């Protein structure tokens, strides 16, 4: 059998080497690119996670404040049977009014009914005057309610100011009056630490531990919140209310729940309208000389 010999010349040997080198470079580049992509992906994933968690945390903090009004559950009522009415106070009120049997503990409900709106007593107690908000808030003992300027703003902007500062814009120029909780009207960016005024005013502050939300009790300042958070998951959140004047009626107040939460490098800002409130006087007015106003249909045998 005849053998065929292939001879590779010196020039051909150089090309081969070059090809190998190119392949090697491609391989290395691919590896580096892949590694970079993997790293970036990991980073993005973490950021996304932090962002999601911070958003959830902000929502949670906000709802913790808002829900505190709406679901005025009698935690002190520890004696069984536990009433069902707290699950849906609106049904309770309505069903009682219409004598519809729904399994709701009517007696307990009537004895301690849940308001089905924002707990007006808190706001009413706060604004215990009919004059301007700024005067009313002067007597306030609720630290987590703010308004801007002379209580004449028609759009909320407190959260935006906080977001501006948090986004890297220097938080300067904002001041808060101790007695009234009025944030200076001049255009300014509000570092969140400015919202913490010791015993005079302070947002509700939260942190988490193993995913559970905990309230930071009476923080003197924002640093105190951060310090406490370091002992747990390192997350922080704050929630407060901003009041604005309703555009349709200057006597009505729009209530906004606002919250900010920070997890890792992610920070979320959320805001929700909590309703429009009117200083409707609940004075008695005028009534008949002799009134019977049973809320129970006593025409029927018990």
């Amino acid at each position, binding site marked *: 059998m005849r053998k065929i010999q292939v001879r590779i010349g010196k020039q051909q040997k150089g090309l081969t080497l070059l090809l190998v080198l190119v392949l090697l470079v491609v391989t290395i580049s691919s590896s580096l690119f892949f590694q970079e992509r993997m790293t970036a992906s990991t980073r993005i994933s973490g950021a996304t996670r932090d962002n999601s968690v911070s958003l959830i945390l902000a929502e949670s903090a906000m709802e913790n404040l808002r829900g505190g009004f709406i679901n005025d559950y009698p935690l*002190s*009522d520890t*004696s069984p049977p536990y009433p069902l009415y707290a699950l849906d106070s609106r049904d309770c*009120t*309505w069903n*009682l*009014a219409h*004598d519809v049997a729904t399994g709701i*503990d*009517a*007696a307990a*409900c*009537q*004895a*301690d*009914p849940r*308001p*089905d*709106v*924002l707990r*007006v*007593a808190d*706001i*009413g*107690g706060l*604004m*215990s*005057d*009919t004059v301007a908000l700024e005067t009313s808030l002067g007597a306030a003992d609720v630290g987590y309610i703010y308004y801007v300027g002379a209580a004449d703003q028609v759009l909320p902007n407190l959260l935006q100011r906080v977001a501006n500062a948090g986004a890297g814009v220097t938080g300067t120029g904002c001041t808060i009056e101790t007695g009234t909780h009025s944030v200076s009207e001049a255009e300014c960016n509000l570092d969140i630490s400015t919202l913490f005024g010791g015993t005079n005013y302070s947002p509700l502050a939260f942190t988490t531990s193993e995913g559970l939300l905990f309230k930071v009790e009476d923080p003197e300042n924002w640093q105190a919140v951060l310090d406490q958070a370091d002992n747990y998951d390192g997350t922080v959140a704050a929630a407060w209310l901003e009041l604005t004047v*309703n555009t*349709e*009626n200057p*006597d*009505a*107040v729009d209530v906004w729940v606002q919250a900010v939460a920070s997890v890792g490098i992610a920070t979320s800002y959320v805001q929700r309208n909590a*309703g*429009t*409130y*009117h*200083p*409707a*006087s*609940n*004075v*008695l*007015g*005028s*009534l*008949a*000389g*002799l*009134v*019977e*106003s*049973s*809320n*129970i249909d*006593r*025409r029927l045998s*018990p």
Partner: protein
Amino acid sequence: MKIHPTITKLLFTLVLCAIFVSDDSLAAKAPACVGGSSCMFLIDMTANPGDVAIMTNLDYVAPGSKSDTAIDDGIGVNTTNIADFHVLSRDITEAPNALKLTIGETGNSVVEDQFGSDTQLKYFAGGNHLFDLERIRVSADWMAQPGNLNPDSGVLAGTYGTLSFSQFLGNIQEHRTMYGFVRVKIPLELGGCLNTTGNCDRNALGGVVTPSDLYGFCQSSVDMCSCAPTSGFKIKEGLTLCGLVMPSSAQIRVKGSLLYDFVASEDNAVAGLNAGDSIPLSLLPWAPRELYFKVEVPIMVNWEFDTDADGAMDNMFNIAAVSMGGSNGLLTAPPITWEMVAPSNMVEYEYYTGEVLTETVFEGLDNASKYHLMMPSGYATGWAEAFDKLNITGGIWRGIPAEPAYGLPDGFENTILTANVVRDHNFEDIPTYLYSGGLIDMHDHVNISGLVYVPQGMELEAKDSSLPTRQYIIGAVVVRDTFYIEAKTNTITVISSDPTSYSTAVINTAIVAARGGGGVVPSASFVASNSDAGDGQAGSGSGDTNTSHITGDHLCYTGCTSESVGSAGAATAPSGAARWIEVRPLVPAPTPE
């Protein structure tokens, strides 16, 4: 002559029948006074034209008997024992306004049976008290706390603020006037519901309960029950109560506000009550009669025009004479003279009109105004006396730790509050005579100025025709479950509607919420829904306005018309009295499946 045995039996039977017929027990079952000739129960609506005299969610029966009412069995109607009660009103269609008499139950005088209807009164919506009694409790407790007030030297501790039942009885015995917020703690005992009406398985809110979980009159004499009302209790001359003999001079005398507050006699861990804590309606019996609190001595709260100090208002006979024997229609020549004007009303008239009331001015007034000037109110002067005796300035009044602080006009920080401050529409009116539950029964003279508040049942019975008993309330009466009014021969009962003494009283925030106070349509109106016309359903959440009310915190004396008079029940909340309601779009009520 021998009488046949059958005839003997027949005669004996006739004698027995005669004895039986003459027996008081039979007479007591019949209305004590009929025909309107020898007794009087009237309601004066001249200061509040446009509103009917009597409004009820349940039925109103006239004439009726006590057994018709929830007072006995917990199944409710409201009753007066006479059919020919009088309603005196202001006819604003006449010029000048005329005095109009309406006898008995008509659509103009009574609106009844509103339960379940669109016009159902909702003063106790959701089972709440109409007023925040806790504010009054806190205020009374604070007043009684040593060091918070600096009363005049003659005002003894134990005559103002929160009192024990024993202190209260002591004040009655000693004829002492009590001042300011007077809260009387009346101990009840767990398991004390005696079931006399067979309804101890229901609480006062209508819920099914275990009878032993309810409170009732004390059966024991331990703890706070050592001085507490028991079954058959009454405050009456000659009786010994808590070791105190009630003398003939016994009177309940209060300048300010009196709250009878049922409290737990001992700790109740299950209900979360400590001894002395107020008992909620959910732990009180369904039938008011289970807590029958009878008073057979004069009740005087912010009383007025009682020169002989017998507890009765002096002008009662004059008032009764105006319509006695009259017939339906305008009273064109009522027997009202200048001498019949209650002295305190001259001051009131000048305050509200800016004009000194002279005889000439009086003679120029319309008959309705003249009539109302016979009705004195001691509401403002009563509170002013309390402020003076307790040395309460505006600063102190605002400093009472009630939430929110009581409404007050500005400028009296360091000044002891006066009657004119109380008359100011920025002064938050305080209900005058309140119970936290049960059945109140008033048998003797009554002289009360202000709002009477009864969250269960009330009996207003002018019992003693020999005095004769005169019962006078100027303000209004609000009961939750039922009322029974009894007019006996030779007695007079007058309820004079007078919004000046209660129109700025602040109602419970929970009432506003429970009756849907937020149902105002934002784009339509943002009006304060505190009072609407005629139906008395303040703040019913249907966008009510105040514009159609005639009188509110102003008296209507001259030229009263439906367009121009009055301030519509204080449309503006007094300072410190505001609450906030949510404004939401009006949505249809859900439909039951």
